[in-house]
Structure formats: structure tokens, C-alpha cells
């Protein structure tokens, strides 16, 4: 049973560019959330997707957008990259039903460096 998988593992971009990160949820999970983790800090919630719609959003600008596909996989897009966007981007998935429905399982993340 594959866990949450994210791609790519590492990415280097320059200021002003756009980036797309990808996430496949754990088997049986239908809800995907994205988090940003700066070095030395805890993850910060960006947004959550369920049934292909954004359901909840954290305190991030509109430059951060996302998408969920019918197979529950998800993309995170960041436009007009800033140096401060350099971070580890984590995807987490959970099921909406079942004994473990409240537990979010994380992928290994994508390390984004903006130069």
C-alpha cells in the first residue's frame, strides 16, 4: 500500500517564475491538504481539497492555487515566485470515513529553492 507520494523531490526556480508540485494521496484517501514548512519551523496550512474543490484555505496569497483531479491526486501551483517561497512543501491526505478518518498522513515533501 503506497503512502502519500510527492514529485518532484527537489526543485530550483528563479524569482518571478511559476512552479507546479504534485501529490498522490494514500490509497483510499479522498482529501488532500498542502502545507508549507520553512526551515526550523512547523508546517503551515495552505489549503485543502475535497471533491475537486478548495474547501478551506490558510493565510496564503492568491499566488498559491491548487487543483484536485477525479483520481484524488492534487497539484499546488505558485505564481510569481518570491525568495520567501523557498521551503519544504508537504502534501497530506486523509479519508473522510472510517476509524482513522481524522489522521492526516504526510508525504516526504518537495524542497523548493527560489534563487
Amino acid at each position: 500500500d503506497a503512502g502519500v507520494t510527492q514529485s518532484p523531490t527537489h526543485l530550483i526556480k528563479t524569482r518571478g517564475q511559476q512552479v507546479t508540485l504534485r501529490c498522490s494521496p494514500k490509497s483510499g484517501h479522498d482529501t488532500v491538504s498542502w502545507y508549507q514548512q520553512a526551515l526550523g519551523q512547523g508546517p503551515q496550512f495552505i489549503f485543502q481539497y475535497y471533491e475537486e474543490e478548495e474547501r478551506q484555505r490558510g493565510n496564503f496569497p492568491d499566488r498559491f492555487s491548487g487543483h484536485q483531479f477525479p483520481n484524488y491526486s492534487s497539484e499546488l501551483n505558485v505564481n510569481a515566485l518570491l525568495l520567501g517561497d523557498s521551503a519544504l512543501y508537504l502534501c497530506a491526505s486523509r479519508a473522510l470515513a472510517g476509524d482513522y478518518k481524522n489522521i492526516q498522513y504526510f508525504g516526504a515533501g518537495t524542497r523548493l529553492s527560489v534563487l
Partner: protein
Amino acid sequence: GESVGLHLPTLSVQEGDNSIINCAYSNSASDYFIWYKQESGKGPQFIIDIRSNMDKRQGQRVTVLLNKTVKHLSLQIAATQPGDSAVYFCAETRMGGGNKLTFGTGTQLKVEL
């Protein structure tokens, strides 16, 4: 891999000792709490959870205590092993509020041989 805990509080323990990691949470409306372990270069890994209607929950070698009066959580690790070395985060959420996780600062646990 790079460290996730460059500026985090650090707890150093001897192998075999018990570890206690503390966390203060912020939202009195939170009703579900999770402890995660994050090793260098990896994503957070679920350890144990607890609902607000409980004050203690035990797992394998780990125990979580919840004190809602002072909004405090603790994670106790029995017989700490070198493989326990990592950054530990507590996270809070409201189960009826979409389960958005709010993470604490994190604690770097170092196990000395």
C-alpha cells in the same frame, strides 16, 4: 539530508531513559490533537493522537497526556532509542472544522549513546 530543526528547542536524553516532550496549544476550541515525528529529509510521521474527551492515551512506548485547563500536551517516550532522534511536533485541530492542522514550534530530540 538537511535538518528540520536548526533553531528548535532541543531535548537531549541518554539511550534507555524516558523522554518527555511538552507542547502548549493555542485554540481552546481545538478538540483533536496529534503528535508527529519528523526525521531529517522526511515528512511528518503520525505517532499518536488524542481527543479532547480524554486526558491520557497510550501507544507502543508512547503516552500522550492532555491538560485542557492549561492547554498543554505532553508526549512521553519510554526507553528512548537512537531511532527516536528527530523533531517532534504537536498539532491541534477541530474535527468539525475541516481538520486543518495547526502545528506547534517543535522540539528536537537527541538521543545520546
